[in-house]
């Protein structure tokens, strides 16, 4: 039994979640403060993966990063980076595809905090960064955990977008969801069942963990 798709999936989900945490925290904080036309457009773009068929997103990423032309060609010639049919391509696609799952809960939680919390901190002489790290962030812990777990779990389950940009290269881009599909195509139902069961169990443990941790803090674990 080849377990490399499971390890590859866990590696992809961990890297994606880590990168999205770095990008998502400041971005969600910025989006939570006030409204402007730029913010509305950006938020709509971030939300698109929720409603767009994954194959559509994957198709455009495939075209955009094709090494034959445009950005893909430039990246290959300048930095020797190729996003198509490579692990870094999967990471890029996953970061874009899972972004609303990281940004949404954090932004919503920050908006629900009373404005006076940050204002009180400012009057005490604290900078916006100090205020974010010492006052705002500690008070949205349940939502932060929800965002991390949702992003991780969602990346585990990606199929269409990773198939389009990554293909099905063993040990490189063949993640668990693709291995399930590939096994069924090859009539290997036992392998498909093992991959599916492992994905189901990992995801279930993650989600139930959030439910238990958040039960004292939120009305709904996905809040």
């Amino acid at each position: 039994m080849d377990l490399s798709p499971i390890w590859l999936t866990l590696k992809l989900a961990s890297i994606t979640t880590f990168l999205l945490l770095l990008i998502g925290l400041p971005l969600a904080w910025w989006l939570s403060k006030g409204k402007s036309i730029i913010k509305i457009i950006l938020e709509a773009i971030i939300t698109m993966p929720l409603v767009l068929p994954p194959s559509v997103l994957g198709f455009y990423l495939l075209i955009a990063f094709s090494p034959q032309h445009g950005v893909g060609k430039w990246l290959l010639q300048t930095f020797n980076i190729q996003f198509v049919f490579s692990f870094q391509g999967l990471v890029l696609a996953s970061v874009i595809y899972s972004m609303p799952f990281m940004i949404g809960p954090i932004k919503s939680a920050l908006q629900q905090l009373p404005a006076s919390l940050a204002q009180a901190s400012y009057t005490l002489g604290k900078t916006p960064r100090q205020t974010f790290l010492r006052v705002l962030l500690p008070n949205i812990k349940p939502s932060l955990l929800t965002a991390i777990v949702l992003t991780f779990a969602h990346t585990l389950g990606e199929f269409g977008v990773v198939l389009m940009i990554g293909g099905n290269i063993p040990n490189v881009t063949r993640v668990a969801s693709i291995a399930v599909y590939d096994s069924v195509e090859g009539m290997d139902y036992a392998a498909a069942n093992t991959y599916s069961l492992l994905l189901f169990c990992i995801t279930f443990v993650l989600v139930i963990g959030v439910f238990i941790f958040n039960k004292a803090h939120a009305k709904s674990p996905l809040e």
Partner: protein
Amino acid sequence: MISIDIQKKLKAYSGQQWLKVNRDFADGSITKIYGPSGAGKTTFLKVIAGLVQPEKGIIKVDDRVWVDTASKITLSPQDRRTGFVFQDYALFPNMTVQQHLEYASNDARWIQKLLTIGKLETLATHKPLYLSGGQQQRLAILRALAIKPQILLMDEPFSALDAAMKAALISELKVLFNELKATVFIISHNPQELEGLCDEELMIDTEG
């Protein structure tokens, strides 16, 4: 001397309203602010603190310009360091009583003194969720005082305190204000509440 001449547009159901204040306040004075609901009393305090920007005007504190809309000068709230007691207390749910004061000040002796004045020594390790309304309000006052502010802005600071606690705290605060040489602005709906504490009054009403 604090010199204030500002105009701030207020959102209201009945069309556009203006908050207009043009007055000087002596250093160390304690001013009671009163007026009808929605007249902009809280907004006035926030304009002084730098949390809200006026449409037009100047604020000078001891000849230092805090706001001058004509010259586009606006000092940040961090640079003004006014003590602010919020109406909703704005306590940090993740911090204990002690941590609130340590977040504002590094002076351990001052923190201890404030805890004693606010009668919160025994509750130093408690988070706001485990404090009564009165205790929360006292903590909000102590936190604002922790930075030893030159100007203290208090929005309904005694509304949740019982009469005995209020009287005891006000008498302690009078000494403290004097020690800090702080200029104090207090919003209150209860005319009797601040008797003997304030030496100035400011009526705030809107103009259409």
